[in-house]
């Protein structure tokens, strides 16, 4: 579903991604781990078509970036630590707006479904400005799912969430994963990632340095695997 080969990204003199190889099958839930400055956000922004690769091949759902960006954008849902919502619009209006941008037919019906999925149907007529951080993040996931994307990218979605809000977010992500979508998630929180993902990739200094499936971790645990991967790199 996601196919990345020898991806390079340079910001002026600074090289952030140096020949990154990555792939994810349909239905896989991959957690992308790594220290700050390893290039996680940059990598996700490139996948999200928000940033151009300096060199390398990126294909999502069979479409190449940046050439077929419009098609990729239809395949992708993106959630970042910024909610990408408008405070002066209601929850429903926010989703309706994005539904129109994605050219979704029967937008009203779809918006209702999504609000139910993220558990905000009761607050649909309230301004997003009045929402808690957790509710905003849930609505933000709803926004990303509006057009029923096959691939979901989540960049640090747990930032700023308290225990309850994180638990609800877990719930939603499980539901979404069970629908057979491909999910790529970055997180600092190893415990959270360990609960959710089916595969763990470690990113260090612009490269994927280790990758392991859930079964392979059974005895050692994610933390040990993560430490080992960073030391070896």
């Amino acid at each position, binding site marked *: 579903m996601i196919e990345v080969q020898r991806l390079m990204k340079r910001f002026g003199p600074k090289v952030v991604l140096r020949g990154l190889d990555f792939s994810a099958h349909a239905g896989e839930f991959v957690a992308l781990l790594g220290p700050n400055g390893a290039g996680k956000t940059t990598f996700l922004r490139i996948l999200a078509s928000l*940033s151009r690769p300096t060199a390398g091949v990126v294909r999502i759902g069979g479409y190449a970036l940046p050439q077929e960006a419009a098609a990729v954008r239809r395949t992708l849902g993106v959630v*970042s630590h910024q909610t*990408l919502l408008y*405070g002066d619009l209601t929850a429903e209006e926010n989703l309706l707006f994005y539904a129109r941008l994605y050219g979704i037919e029967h937008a009203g019906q779809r918006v209702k479904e999504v609000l139910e999925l993220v558990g905000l149907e009761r607050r649909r007529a309230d301004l997003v400005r009045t929402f808690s951080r957790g509710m905003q993040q849930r609505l933000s996931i709803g926004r990303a799912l509006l057009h029923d994307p096959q691939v979901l990218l989540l960049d640090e979605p747990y930032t700023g969430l308290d225990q309850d809000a994180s638990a609800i977010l877990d719930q939603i992500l499980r539901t979404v994963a069970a629908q057979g979508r491909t999910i790529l998630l970055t997180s600092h929180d190893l415990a959270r990632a360990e609960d959710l993902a089916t595969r763990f990739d470690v990113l260090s200094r612009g490269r994927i340095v280790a990758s392991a499936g859930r079964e392979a971790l059974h005895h050692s645990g994610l933390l040990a695997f993560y430490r080992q991967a960073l030391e070896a790199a």
Partner: protein
Amino acid sequence: MKPRAPFLQSVWAILWKDLAAELRSRELFSGMFIFALLVIVIFNFAMELDVATRRSVTAGVLWTTFFFAGTIGLSRSMAMEKDRGSLDGLLLAPVDRAAIYFGKMLGNLLFMLLVEALILPLYSFLYNQNLFNGGLFLVILLGSLGYAAVGTLLASMSIQARTRDLLLPILLFPVLLPLVIGAVKASGGYLSGAAREEILPFLNLLLTYDVIFLSISYMLFDSVIEE
């Protein structure tokens, strides 16, 4: 699979979103309007707008007011996009980048026209000068269009810089001079009942400016918002 939403639908969606948000908060509009009012009051005392002076400076006062108030609207409208990282939200959607430009530009134009529509009768009331003039309306439409065209582009740049609000007027005003000349001269011509041949060159200037800056801003907008 449809590759993207139809162009006009996207433009309309963005415009609708700006209008709906503004109807709720009225921040942008009230900010622009109150600021415009203050500028006029300041002009009154700075220039002693007696009957004789008024005849010659009304057009200048009006346009200075509109242009200053306009920068407030432009900053605010783009800040709203950047506030919660929404510019990324727009970019993630499979819409033509030009649709984003035209959506934002039309919103900016609309707010500006709205403020102008309120300032004109107020100015007439304060200074007992009839500004209900079809020619003047045309000039205001053309002048505001050019302003919104280049302003939307420059505001989407300044909003991404560290110096933000400070930067916008500094970027905008130097390239606005032809618009100032055209708008002030043409408005002044209509208000003083000048002959059509005297006004026409300035209308042409406005029209030229609008066409040139609308097309170049539309072409450059991609480079301003895409990485």
